[in-house]
């Protein structure tokens, strides 16, 4: 049985036990929607040290070929760790308030 996620299921449709009938379903849940602060990355200032990548608790820093390429706002929760860890000389990440 494959579970449907297009609408909330009622209790009679759920598989027995609180199991989810497939694996890695968390990929489908965008957890970035409760962010109140948004990190803004400045590509010009970035020295690609990847401190932000290694410390981000939500794996929201995207990297390609050893270079930082941006922030995945679907999963970034706005904690600001990346902005704090970014070396002061680079200061490539700014935290700004989310627009409503």
């Amino acid at each position, binding site marked *: 049985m494959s579970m449907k996620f297009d609408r909330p299921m009622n209790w009679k449709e759920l598989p*027995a036990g*609180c199991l*989810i*009938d*497939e694996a890695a379903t968390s990929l489908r849940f965008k957890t970035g929607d409760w962010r109140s602060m948004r990190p803004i990355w400045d590509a010009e200032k970035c020295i690609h040290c990847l401190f932000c990548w290694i410390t981000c608790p939500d794996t929201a820093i995207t990297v390609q070929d050893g270079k930082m390429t941006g922030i995945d706002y679907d999963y970034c929760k706005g904690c600001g760790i990346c902005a704090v860890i970014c070396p002061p000389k680079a200061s490539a990440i700014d935290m700004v308030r989310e627009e409503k």
Partner: protein
Amino acid sequence: MKTIAKTGNEAMAYAMKQINPDVVAAYPITPATEIVQIFSNYVADGEVDTEFVAVESEHSALSACVGASLAGGRVMTSTASQGLALMHEILYIAAGNRLPIVIALVNRSLSAPINIHCDHSDTMGSREAGWMQLYCANSQEAYDSLIIALKVAEQTAVPAIVSTDAFIISHAMERLEVLEDEEVQRFIGEYKPRFSALDLENPKTFGPLDLQDYFFEHKRAQIDDFSKVLGTYNKVAQEYAELSGRYYPALEEYKTDDADVAIFTAGSTADTAKEVVDGLREQGRKMGLVRMRMWRPLPVEEIKAALGKFKAVAVMDRSDTMADFGGPVFLETRGILYDAKKKPLLTDYVYGLGGRNIDISDILRVYDEIEQVVKQGKIDKLITYLGVRGEE
């Protein structure tokens, strides 16, 4: 079928051997220690195929059982008293995940004060955890009930606790009829789990976070599954009766047909009360006994029908709710009878806490007093603490 002599603990260990579970994870606790001690001998002697997991606490024991059951195994454990209290958190997790684990339990009071003897406060304190509960009156029943409970649990995906009274049953040697190993295996059948965490072809997510949007639906579904337990139990108990000649209804009635009054109680005390009833009947007094065997789920309609026909009933509770309103059996029975068309006058006797002896004269007193209630047509004392010093 052969006849042997065994204590309650030996009988339960023997039933576990014949069930031959895939995994047993357990931690010793008086007075249930023997059950897994004897069972571990079966493991060491190669008489079972079980993976025996020795753990560092009851919390870990039931946690290991949860893991083994999620992996698709047939799983059992054993505990008592504080051990069950330490398992409390995991009881809910096993039930919520629909894992048909079976606990062979010995009822012992909960500390403080510390005590190793019988009362029912341990399992009564876990009655909202989503486990089927069967209270046994003797070793024979304990043996039979483990086999029945395992089958009901696996058919309904509801875990089960089967219990005996500390020392009174657990350590008393009794004559007992047992089935052959193959008969037990045929009766319980091969366990076909609904899912397995080891099924790598079909990976699933177990135990995920479940918040405001789905938790209630999952609980509602669990409650619905629980409502099917009694029906399945009745069917399986019938099948077991055909195999063994021993039938165990969820609620047992003894000499109740023409009785005006009855005692409603559980466990070994019910067997003692049968002796008393026999004596009273010889004197021509119309008195009976109703024995509560299954207390989760509650056999609501059965209780209504059984108790509704008496003029007065004395509930005998071997634990207290600390609600200033007597014991749990009394409290719930009152609730059940609330909308019954015919209902008896109902009183409660809390007795036997911490293994305080209950003998024939105590039970006779209860029958005398309940007869008095009928004569007066009213109850003078709703809740009596029976056999405690300082009490009238």
